[in-house]
């Protein structure tokens, strides 16, 4: 009996979950094409049939009257996210490789403690971190600049990169590094030539995490930049007013998550093609 009903049960659960995930997107999508009347006139879902679609919201976010231009914030966000992710991955995989392959000891502090130290940076509430960050950037003259924001974002992403990569490197047999060394590579070359090429799955996953966290950061950008630099989440929030322009907010929100959706689809395709699995047996 179980075997007959199981698929029904399985697909029902999956369908419900899909609605739960896709629902807000659908809601935002329809709202972004509405005007004030359509939004306030109760819930409607079908364009033309239930409401007249308009491009007002979308025009507003690309510099239309009464809106903002989201292109500059988008570029800022992209620069900060890409730069911080790249730096975090580079530094993070080096640190992770060292933590995976060498044994460090400082009194009672061991490798696992160092890894925990990295990860623990993310345990602290952001509001605790933002004050020292503020003073550090002020001292360095980097408040309200892209480099300043990149440095802070690296501090946030590095723990994730280290954590993911330590775990991944631990899964690659040590004998591969040893063999590379026997085959004539000094340690750093062994890492670059024998380990990194086999770490693509780990690097991809770490890069995705970094990109998502970096892209979605609102709090630090909000506190550490003012007028010169604005990131996309800030721009979206700035659209709000006493009478929320829901259509514009929806369009901006969709525009903001679009890159992440594309990234997720791309990673998903890599995974399903098996490009990431089986690199190391």
């Amino acid at each position, binding site marked *: 009996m179980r075997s007959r009903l199981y698929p029904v049960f399985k697909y029902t659960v999956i369908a419900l979950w899909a609605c739960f995930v896709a629902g807000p997107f659908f809601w935002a999508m329809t709202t972004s094409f509405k005007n004030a009347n359509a939004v306030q006139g109760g819930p409607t879902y079908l364009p033309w049939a239930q409401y007249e679609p308009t491009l007002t919201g979308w025009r507003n976010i690309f510099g239309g009257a009464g809106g903002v231009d989201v292109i500059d914030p988008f570029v800022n966000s992209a620069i900060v996210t890409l730069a911080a992710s790249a730096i975090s991955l580079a530094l993070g995989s080096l640190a992770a490789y060292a933590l995976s392959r060498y044994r460090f000891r400082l009194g009672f502090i061991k490798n696992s403690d160092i890894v925990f130290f990295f990860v623990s940076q993310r345990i602290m509430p952001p509001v605790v971190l933002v004050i020292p960050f503020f003073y550090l950037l002020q001292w360095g003259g980097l408040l309200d600049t892209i480099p300043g924001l990149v440095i802070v974002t690296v501090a946030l992403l590095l723990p994730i990169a280290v954590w993911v990569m330590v775990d991944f490197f631990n899964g690659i047999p040590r*004998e591969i590094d040893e*063999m590379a060394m*026997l*085959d*004539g*590579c000094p340690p750093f070359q062994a890492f670059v030539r024998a380990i990194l090429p086999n770490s693509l799955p780990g690097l991809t996953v770490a890069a995705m995490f970094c990109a998502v966290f970096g892209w979605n950061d609102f709090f630090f950008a909000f506190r550490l930049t003012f007028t010169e630099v604005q990131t996309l989440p800030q721009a979206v929030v700035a659209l709000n007013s006493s009478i929320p322009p829901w259509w514009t907010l929806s369009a901006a929100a969709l525009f903001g998550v679009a890159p992440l959706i594309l990234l997720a689809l791309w990673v998903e395709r890599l995974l399903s093609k098996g490009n990431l699995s089986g690199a190391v047996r």
Partner: protein
Amino acid sequence: MNLSATDLCLTVDGVDHLRKVTATFEPGRLHTVIGRTMAGKTTLLRALAGLQKVDSGSLTRAGADFLRTPVWRRDTAMVYQQFINYPHLNVFDNVAFPLKRAGLSRDEIRRRVRQSLASVGLADFEQRKPSQLSGGQQQRVAMARALARETGILLLDEPLANLDYKLREQLRDEFKALFSDQGDTIVIYTTTEPAEAMMLGDVVLVMHEGRILQTGTPQEVYERPATTTVASIINDPPMNVFTGRLEGGQVTVAGFQATHVSPHLADLPDGAYRFGLRATDVSLAAGGVEGEVTFVEISGSETFVHVAVGESPFVVQIEGIHDVALGDLVKLRLRPDRLFAFDEQGSLVRTPSYDLASVEGR
């Protein structure tokens, strides 16, 4: 260009892995290191390769300090027990990897890769990834990579241990041929199997609990095992070692009159000894030492009967399949002319055909 280890010691977390290991490895010879698992064989190879630091002792190559030479300049190739290849490279690039690091020309690399892949029978597999090969083929790739480098030192750490029995025999035969034209290379090969050690080795080193117990030609080690431990390691099934009394050349075991007078033992003083006797030199008979059957292994061509005589376990190897039940009381006949005699500390006193005076390498 000898590789000489002197008093190598290594203790990790209170466990001794190497205890004063002293050995000389010569170019152009194949040295097999035989020992049970955990005997320190792998640790020794890793120390020679520079992958494992030692606590004390010295290692010299052609008279120069080798311990200070970093791994990547030791001119050493190694084949692991696990099949270790570069997963992201195809077979050709796997073998070419060390040659590229050595800065050889493209043509030379291609020539050597082709040649060594052909010698291990993988000429048609250049474009495959290691994950697309069987275990035996993966190990051949590792062999080809080690051979193509033409290094001064070639280390093989139980390279056949993870292969099935048929393939193991086949590769063992191929290795014999491959190693025979290795020129001036020092080859060191570890194994747990006596047959492998003796078939491949020009020199056999017997290792146990981090020590090298005996070094010699296969014949020397087999015919004159320096201690009871060596005797047990170098024989498969392990040599039966038991305590008995010698009186006037006659051996008594657990109260039983075990043998007639053994001429080669007749001049030894009476007293307690430890005796060694190969499993093939014990048989089930109507009279003799009595014991209880504890275990029976049937391989088809042979039956191995495990018998407990008092405190001493015996293994009896008999041809063909024999129907012996657990718990049966059986009588063992020990061949008196094949007895090895050891003193109570386990050191060799008398062999069936040689005298202690001629035992070397103790």
